[in-house]
């Protein structure tokens, strides 16, 4: 009996397949439709009829070829994640400051799942890396306190190189095709996308509270300290990820702060604390001399276009 459907009987095979896809997603994997499509695409390549999809512009495609890579296919990793309930940090004293670990961990986990799926897709295509990754992080409209992380890029294979071993992960780079070429030309290679975040709850001390009420200029020192703590934790996480990749540095770091006020009602009195959100991401790089002469030479030009 199907009250709202089209009246067609539901195919039990499709139901079983949907359920299998769901189980894959629960395990951090890919839905079956994506797996099948990518496996097909890889099979065509092996049979000598390669076909690639890519969101690289023609210039980027040319430069990607120039640094010895050929595109295999556009890949994506996505994760819609519900942020759980966050209780305020508590201590013996009622008002305490501390990390809001449910908030921090939701971001870290959503990002991990999205990028893991991106790499799984690339792996299915037999890729060595993913270039030109565009990363978006937003509130999702799937429900209240739901976040959505998405990474889209082009899987590439090093021309003429043997496929990666099973336990080697493909590299991920959020550089444009131009930047990727220039970086390799300068003797470096992208190693991965690195990310760090922290949400910190800061309760203002009495000095900051009285400064907020006053008429005079004053630094709100406890809030500044809270912002620093959040930043230190976020940057340490970004740096820890970079060390895991044995990077020598991180370029293009994007750093964002956001301060949110939080009204707290307790024991018949109103008071406010602040949530300090800090997020940073960038591209981890490492030395890779490649076939290029070092150092690069630069000469000024004037464009006579326009």
């Amino acid at each position, binding site marked *: 009996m199907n009250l709202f459907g089209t009246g067609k009987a539901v195919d039990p095979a499709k139901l079983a397949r949907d359920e299998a896809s769901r189980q894959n997603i629960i395990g951090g994997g890919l839905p079956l439709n994506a797996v099948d499509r990518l496996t097909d695409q890889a099979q065509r390549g092996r049979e000598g009829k390669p076909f690639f999809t890519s969101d690289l512009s023609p210039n980027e495609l040319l430069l990607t070829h120039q640094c010895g890579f050929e595109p295999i296919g556009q890949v994506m990793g996505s994760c819609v994640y519900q942020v759980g309930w966050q209780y305020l940090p508590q201590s013996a004293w009622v008002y305490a400051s501390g990390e809001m670990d449910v908030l921090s961990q939701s971001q870290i986990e959503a990002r991990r799942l999205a990028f893991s799926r991106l790499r799984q897709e690339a792996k299915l295509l037999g890729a060595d890396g993913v270039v030109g990754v565009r990363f978006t992080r937003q509130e999702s409209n799937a429900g209240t306190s739901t976040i959505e992380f998405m990474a889209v890029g082009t899987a590439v294979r090093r021309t003429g190189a043997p496929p990666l071993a099973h336990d080697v992960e493909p590299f991920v780079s959020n550089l444009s095709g131009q930047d990727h070429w220039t970086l390799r030309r300068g003797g470096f290679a992208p190693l991965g996308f690195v990310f760090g975040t922290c949400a910190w709850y800061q309760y203002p001390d009495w000095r900051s509270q009285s400064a907020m009420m006053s008429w005079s*200029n004053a630094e709100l020192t406890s809030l500044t300290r809270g912002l620093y703590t959040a*930043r230190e934790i976020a940057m340490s996480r970004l740096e820890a990820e970079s060390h895991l990749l044995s990077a020598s540095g991180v370029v293009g770091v994007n750093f964002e*702060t956001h*301060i949110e006020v939080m009204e707290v009602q307790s024991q018949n009195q109103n008071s406010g604390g602040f949530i300090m959100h800090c997020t940073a991401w960038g591209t981890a790089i490492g030395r890779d001399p490649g076939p290029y002469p070092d150092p*690069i030479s*630069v*000469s*000024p*030009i004037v464009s006579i276009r326009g």
Partner: protein
Amino acid sequence: MSSSPYQPGQEQGLPEAAVRRLKEMRGEGATPKLFTSDLSVNEFLLVREAGFDPVGLVMGSSIYHVGLQIANVFQNQELDVLTQAMYQARELAMTRMEEEADVLGADGIVGVRLIVTLQQWGENMAEFMAIGTAIKHRAGGNYRTIHNRPFTSDLSGQDFWTLLQTGYRPVALVMGTCVYHVAHQGLGAALKRVGRNTEMENFTQALYDARELALSRVQAEAESENAVGIVGARVEESSHGWGSHVIEYFAIGTAVVPISTDHEVPAPSLVLPLT
């Protein structure tokens, strides 16, 4: 504006965790050396080409309560309490950023951005942030200002490279600010101009006054650094939500000193992109 002279290597404004993390970035810990940087790939390579290595992304923050000042409604005047606040909070953020660069053993900071965010959650509360990439010359040498601070500059990696090619080097990010109250008109004056084309001379005059004050302050800062000039100077006018009669005039630029007498550059070649 700073009270005590800057000591190289000072870390007064930095929390312990920041000092520890920065020292680890230098390689003084369990982890190998690592730099972070908000330079783009092109900037990164150009800074390296100029003989410098990035050593770390450095930041300084201050969350500040801006005081209150009641202006005479019918008078054009500087609101010195607010001017002081804007100066002091930026100075705090800049100094903390410079201290971080010092912990990293840097010569200076390029691509500095000064960001002021007025928070909608608290009245008169603002977040000041200075952020940039600390760099260090591979061959050593003294690139500090005459006040013993690391050099600071808001130039991009491209501009930094070009400036060095032309025989100058940046010494300090200099700024001047002025918060100014524009007089309201009396009823009589307002009635006189109803329906007429006429200049709002009190606004024009106030803008000029504020601009002169801000520019003379930025110039004084550059002169105190023994600079020969300021490049990339810009002025920003904003009211930070103080209403239409209070404006901040903010001037900022990079003070430069010559490193050679020769400021000739090879003539650039002309290209016509076919894209």
